[in-house]
């Protein structure tokens, strides 16, 4: 009796797993935290010197590894007109690894696509300035649970330790 029930459950689990795998593997565009492939949208030519307008369209979508496009949604911030993206996982993030291998990428803000080049920020003073600009000093709240509520995500940590902050990689994106 119980084996028959378990067989039925196994069929449901197998079908669900295959459906989820098919959905994930055939994603053209990133969905939430799931990565996608080549982005679609209107490609903008011309140099952008002030990225402040990107604040109107969240999230920002990155398309890295031009040889075999890999796209992800990410948070970003604009400081003095410059566009910055952070990898909270540092080098453990796949897209950050791809950016180190090839800094050329495309980004999509709204429905427009921009060709940019990434530069990893190594200057400690600038990194400190970025942290201060984002209110991410050690032990200080970054996002309250109320701010993330309703986004379909679990609440982010409200404080980051110095070790966590040191792990973050920052990239500046400039037009190419």
């Amino acid at each position, binding site marked *: 009796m119980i084996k028959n029930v*378990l067989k039925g459950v*196994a069929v449901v689990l197998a079908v669900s*797993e295959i459906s989820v795998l098919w959905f994930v593997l055939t994603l053209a565009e990133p969905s939430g935290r799931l990565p996608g492939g080549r982005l679609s949208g209107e490609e903008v030519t011309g140099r952008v010197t002030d990225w402040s307008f990107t604040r109107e369209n969240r999230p920002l979508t990155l398309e890295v590894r031009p040889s075999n496009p890999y796209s992800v949604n990410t948070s970003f911030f604009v400081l003095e007109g410059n566009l910055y993206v952070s990898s909270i996982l540092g080098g453990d993030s796949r897209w950050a690894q791809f950016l180190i291998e090839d800094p050329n990428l495309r980004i999509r803000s709204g429905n427009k696509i921009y060709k940019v080049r990434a530069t990893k920020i190594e200057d400690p003073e600038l990194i400190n300035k970025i942290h201060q600009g984002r209110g991410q000093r050690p032990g200080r709240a970054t996002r309250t649970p109320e701010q993330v509520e309703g986004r379909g995500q679990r609440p982010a940590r409200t404080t980051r330790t110095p070790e966590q902050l040191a792990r973050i990689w920052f990239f500046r994106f400039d037009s190419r």
Partner: protein
Amino acid sequence: MKLVILLVGALLVVFGLIRDGVNLYNEFAAAGLLVFCLGGASYFIAWPMSRDEEQKWHFNPDSVWFLIYLVVLATSGSWLWLLLR
């Protein structure tokens, strides 16, 4: 014992779904699925082929169910690991 493992897994899944809904970030559902698959797999442990009393090879259908539970077990394990790391 196997039944207890199954029930614990099923309860964890139900609790997770009630608490967090259908959500990729649902640790309880991931843990429950892992435990449930562990219990489920234990009912079907079998090699794909075995010899009968006449020493003839024959196929064990239970191994298919065992394999399905193992695959889902590995998936839920990876899911939980990604959530907890």
